[in-house]
Structures are given as structure tokens and as C-alpha cells.
């Protein structure tokens, strides 16, 4: 069951036009992404061994992927040994069925949830609702998105597109039970604390994702900020955690590496407020029953592509979103997938292969900033180019595009030449802007233009800007 948005008939070029014109969204996004960028650069700059850490992260993930079947079996054995129950789900409908039947076995009609992209991918909340189970999101931003019947727009700050006055109004109409609220973030957070506290204390079943799972010990790890994760992992009687097959790590020491890489890349903190690990069931402390649902949902298909498989190294930190000039202008919804931004542009087409997602590899200027910040060194531009070629060769795109994107691949492969061409284009910006933006282009180029937002060629190229503003921030 694909997400509604992934099913939509509109591809990135169309949705993005709509989103780019939303100035509130653009302003929120711009200040948000630049704030996180700065914080990240500062704390990454403090780690002298950052590059080594990135390479280590990359190697660990590649090692996992290269023997994934063995690590999954080892994880299953370890989790079972410490009292957990392992389930395997080939696709989203099977995962949803497993989760629903576990909830029903316990006679429950409500569950609490920790923010999880994997369960968003499953459209779990909708599935449960259709079967009489209410799922309550407990992460503040996810709660906002859920109450507004909206979709997340950023991996890390899903409600980045909502202003505080919109949130105040939303809370007054929903959780504050008629009480009038101020629009200070602290007061709004307090309103959600009061509302959710009761849910935490009364719920019997919690559903979570998984950040990391250690094959050697069966230890599962969740990284969070607010404490809602701890509540869900500690208070209910039954815990159901869903993980993509790629989340497994070989050893505990590998987990330590990712606990360094993730918070610095993600929220730009030395460490996020709360990280929890549990190793099966701990009598007298926490859930009495622990279920681990191991989900494929076409990840094995991604694994089969020797170039595209590196997307499975992703630890969902969102650093690539925050540096992406396209994301900054378009916002997350334009990608029409639970995985937005540069990572979404390489993961969504491989995972979902819907018509809309197949346009995503073009949602990039190939500037390379995403690769430079990625804590597991996913070469996103390279995968983008690879996917463009794949989409074309499988006949989804017209021949004329094939030629132009071959050209992009060519210039990209020679980084310096790409710089040079951009600089030349910058010089020629006036005449080129006139030509492209005026609209009427001849023949094939004209058709191509009609479906696309052509940005004005900027005074400086992104690389020029990045060199001047980005790289002296410590990365």
C-alpha cells in the first residue's frame, strides 16, 4: 500500500511549482535549514577525526550490506535469545497486518507511536484507523502534522512548514479542549505535554521504528529529543518496533560510531537529549513483550543495484536536506514521498518506482553539497545520474532527455569542467535568462521547457557560494 502522495499523478516538476510559490513555507524553510546548517558545521568542526568517522560509518554500513542475510539471521537469533519475538514482513501490507494482529491480540484499540519514517512508509496509521485502531503520534511535530491531517515535510522537523500561529489555532481546536493558548513555543509544547501524559500512562501498546539494531547482542537503539520515545519504550506492556532490513549493525562498537555521527549531522548537537537501548525484555523494567518486525518492502530490490544500493547506508539524519538548494526552495512535500530531499530523490524511485517518484532523480542540480555532508558518504549525485540513465533506458523518458542528461553525467564526472561550465553560464546569464525565461523555445527544447521551472541563472554558482560561505564553517 503506497502512500497517497507517492501515488499522486504529479511528478516533482509539477508539485514543486506550487510549493515554490508558497512564501511562508519558503521563509520557514530557509531560516530553518540555515540555522541547522550552522549548528552542524560547528559541532562537526569540533571533531578532528570527522572524516575518519565518516569513512568508518561508510565501511560499517557497506560491510552490513555485503553480508546482509547473515547479519539478519544473527540479529534474529540474538533478539530471540533475550526474549524478543521476530517477525518478517516482505512488504508494507504484510507489516501492517502483523502489527494490527499483535494489537488486536491484546484487545487494544489505541496505540502510542514514536516518530518513525518506516511506519510512515507503511501508511500504518491509516491502515490501523481503517481497522478500528487509533494510533497517536507522540513526537510534537508529528502530533501537529497528525492533528492537521497533513503530511510531514522534513525528516527531522516534520512540521517545519507550520508557523506558530497556525499551531496555536490547531491546538485550540483540538487538544486544548477549548482553552485559549498563547503562541509561545514553550506554551504550545506544554499543551502537548499535558495532552500526551495521559496517553503515555494509560496505553498498553507502543509502536516505534528503529535507528539501529546490533546483530551481535540483539540490542535495539532509538535516538530522540523530547522524551516521548522513552515514554513509549518504557511504560506500555507491549512494544512493537519496525525496522527496515538495512538498519542492522554488526557490533556494539559500531553503534558507538553512529552515536557520534548521527546527532552531529542531524540536529547539530554533540548528542541528542535521549538515546535508549534495550536488549530484549528486561523483567521489572519496561515492556513485558517485545516484537521486532523486520521489513523488506523492496529494499532487497535496491540492494540488487550495485550503484544504487549505497542509498541503504542512509541513517536518516537529514543533513543532505539542509544543504540542498532545491529542497530549500521546494520544501519536502514537492517530493511526494515520505523520503524528501536528496536522499528521497535516490531512495523513493528505487523503493516505490511509481511514475511520480521516477521524476525525482531530476530534482537536483547535482551540486554535490549533499555528498559532502553525508555522514555515511553516500555519493548522491552519482546515484542520481545513474538513476536518470536507468529511468531513461527503461523507457520512461523521451530520447531527447536522454541526450541532455548524458551531458550532465559527463560534466559531473569531470568536477572541474562542471564548475567551469557553470561559471561560463553565470557570465552568460543575461542572454540565457532572456532566452529561457521568455518561454518560447523551438522544437523539443520547447516541450521540455513547458514542463519545467527553469530557475534564473544566479550571479554566483552554488559551488562558488558554498566555497565562500559553506566550507569555512568547519567541513
Amino acid at each position, binding site marked *: 500500500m503506497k502512500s497517497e502522495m507517492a501515488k499522486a499523478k504529479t511528478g516533482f516538476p509539477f508539485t514543486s511549482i506550487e510549493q515554490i510559490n508558497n512564501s511562508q513555507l519558503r521563509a520557514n524553510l530557509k531560516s530553518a535549514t540555515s*540555522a*541547522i546548517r550552522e549548528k552542524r558545521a560547528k559541532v562537526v568542526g569540533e*571533531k*578532528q*577525526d570527522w572524516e*575518519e568517522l565518516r569513512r568508518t560509518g561508510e*565501511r560499517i554500513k*557497506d*560491510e552490513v550490506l*555485503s*553480508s*546482509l*542475510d547473515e547479519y539478519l539471521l544473527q540479529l534474529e537469533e540474538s533478539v*530471540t*535469545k533475550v526474549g524478543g*519475538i*521476530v*517477525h*518478517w514482513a*516482505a512488504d508494507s501490507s*504484510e507489516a501492517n497486518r502483523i502489527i494490527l494482529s499483535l494489537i488486536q491480540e491484546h484487545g487494544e484499540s489505541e496505540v502510542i507511536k514514536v516518530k518513525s519514517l518506516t511506519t510512515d512508509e507503511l501508511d500504518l496509521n491509516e491502515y490501523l484507523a481503517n481497522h478500528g485502531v487509533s494510533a497517536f503520534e507522540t513526537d*510534537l*511535530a508529528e502530533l*501537529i502534522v497528525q492533528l492537521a491531517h497533513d503530511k510531514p515535510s522534513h525528516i527531522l*522537523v516534520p512540521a*517545519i512548514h507550520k508557523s*506558530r500561529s497556525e499551531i496555536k489555532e490547531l491546538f485550540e481546536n483540538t487538544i486544548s479542549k477549548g482553552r485559549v493558548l498563547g503562541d509561545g*513555543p514553550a506554551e504550545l*509544547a506544554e499543551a*502537548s*505535554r499535558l495532552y500526551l501524559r495521559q496517553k503515555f500512562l494509560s496505553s498498553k501498546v507502543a509502536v516505534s521504528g528503529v535507528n539501529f539494531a*546490533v546483530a551481535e547482542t540483539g*540490542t535495539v537503539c532509538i535516538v530522540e*529529543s*523530547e*522524551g516521548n520515545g*522513552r*515514554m513509549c519504550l518504557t*511504560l506500555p506492556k507491549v512494544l512493537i518496533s519496525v525496522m527496515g*532490513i538495512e538498519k542492522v549493525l554488526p557490533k556494539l*562498537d559500531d553503534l558507538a*560510531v553512529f*552515536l*557520534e555521527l548521527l*546527532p552531529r549531522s542531524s*540536529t547539530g548537537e*554533540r*548528542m541528542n*537529549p*535521549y*538515546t*535508549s*537501548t534495550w*536488549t530484549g525484555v*528486561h523483567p521489572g*523494567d*519496561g515492556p513485558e513483550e517485545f516484537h521486532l518486525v523486520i521489513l523488506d518492502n523492496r529494499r532487497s530490490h535496491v*540492494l*540488487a543495484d*550495485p550503484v544504487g544500493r549505497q542509498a541503504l547506508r542512509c541513517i536518516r539524519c537529514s543533513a543532505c536536506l539542509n544543504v540542498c538548494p532545491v529542497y530549500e526552495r521546494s520544501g519536502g512535500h514537492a517530493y511526494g514521498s515520505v523520503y524528501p530531499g536528496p536522499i528521497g530523490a535516490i531512495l523513493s524511485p528505487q523503493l516505490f518506482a511509481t511514475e511520480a517518484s521516477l521524476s525525482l532523480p531530476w530534482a537536483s542540480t547535482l551540486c554535490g553539497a549533499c555528498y559532502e555532508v553525508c555522514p555515511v558518504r553516500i555519493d548522491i549525485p552519482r546515484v542520481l545520474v545513474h538513476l536518470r540513465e536507468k529511468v531513461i533506458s527503461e523507457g520512461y523518458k523521451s530520447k531527447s532527455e536522454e541526450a541532455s542528461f548524458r551531458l550532465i553525467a559527463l560534466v559531473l564526472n569531470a568536477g572541474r569542467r562542471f564548475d567551469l561550465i557553470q561559471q561560463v553560464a553565470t557570465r552568460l546569464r543575461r542572454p540565457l535568462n532572456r532566452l529561457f525565461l521568455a518561454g518560447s523555445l523551438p522544437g523539443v527544447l520547447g516541450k521540455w521547457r513547458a514542463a519545467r521551472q527553469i530557475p534564473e541563472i544566479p550571479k554566483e554558482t552554488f559551488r562558488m557560494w558554498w566555497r565562500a560561505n559553506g566550507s569555512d564553517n568547519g567541513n
Partner: protein
Amino acid sequence: MGATMETSGIKSSRAAILELVKAALREKSPSAPSALAGIATPGAPGTPPSIRKHLEQSVADLFEEVLLDYKATVRRCAEHQVPSVIAELFASQEISSAVIPDGLDRSWIEQIKGIELVVDDGFRSTGELASIDAVITGCACAIAETGTLVLSCQPDEGRRAITLLPDFHFCVVRSSVIIRGVNDLFKHVSVANPITLISGPSATSDIELKRVEGVHGPRNLFVIIVS
């Protein structure tokens, strides 16, 4: 292999997934990774001066500095001063009840006045714990570089719920248990128990990216570093 659910449907998905994964791996990536390599040692020649300073700082100083960054309250004292420091911190806040884990050094709480103190026997309901204002714990491991308290359910740390539901957390950390970085973490703590890493009070930046201290976990964190 481990005892998975015996339902045939689930069994077959397990086999199918493993089969797909195996098949997918037949084609190797263009640049196959080599064996795992270790992490470089910080402090090697060529370390920038700012980082050098960081490295020369004692772990306790560094720990304190990072904690202050998280808006935690920090006190440094000698062992015999712990009871008076805790009492003083309590007096500065509006606290009327506190819970302690069974294994806590009782001398630490001797001087606290006028509050209701309960010892967690492991059976108190979550509702009861949620109505208690504060918790006092020890700490068996802490990380300087990230200002992290590592709680692993030791007798003086208690089960997870007691450090989660009260709004004030007072944590006593002996400087001898502070390690420098995260990389060594699992050499110092065992995952046999659940582990909670706490780095500052709970926080969110979900509304217009303004950081708000405290959403669901304790909103006030007090750390007493004992030298």
C-alpha cells in the same frame, strides 16, 4: 535458528526476504569496501590549537562545560559535601516530593528538609511516579565530550521509569566514572540492562525551530560532579 513465529505465512516471508537479499548481493559494488579500519586518534600531530585545548581539558571540566551548554545546572564538590549541595539545590526549587532508587547512598539525602521521600521498590505504579516531583540518582558512567549521563539501571540509578516521569532529575556523578568520548562507551557499560543516555533536559525545536527545554522527560536537570 531462533524460534520465529511458526505461522506459515511469516515463515515463508522470512525465507523469501533472505533469498532476495542473497540474490541481490550476487553483483558486487564497483568499489568493494575493505576490512573495517579503526578510528584515528585525536591529538595526533597537526591537531588545530582549539581542539588541542579541548583535549587537554580534564574530563570533568569538559563534561561541565558541555552540560552547561545544554542548560543543565552543574555543581562541583567533594564527596562529603554532596548532602549539603543536594539539600541546597532542593531548597532553591519548588519540590515537595522525591523518589530514590533502592541502592542510593542514603547519606546523600540526609539534609533535605520538608519533602516527602519515597524509595522505589520496583512496584510503584507509573501513575504514582508521575505525581512525584523529583528523582535523585547516582550514575555509573558519563561522557565528557557530549555531556552525557549513561544510566544502565544500576542499584543507585533505578529502573527507567523513575528517571523519566518526575520533572526534576538530580544526578550525582563521580569524576572517576567520566570517560572522554562516545567511542569507548560499550567498553564501560553492559547492554544486559536497558541503557538511557541523557544529554541535557528534554527538548524540542519543532515549533519554528525555537528550542524549548522540556517536553516529556524531566525539564530540569541538575548534575553534581564529585571529585
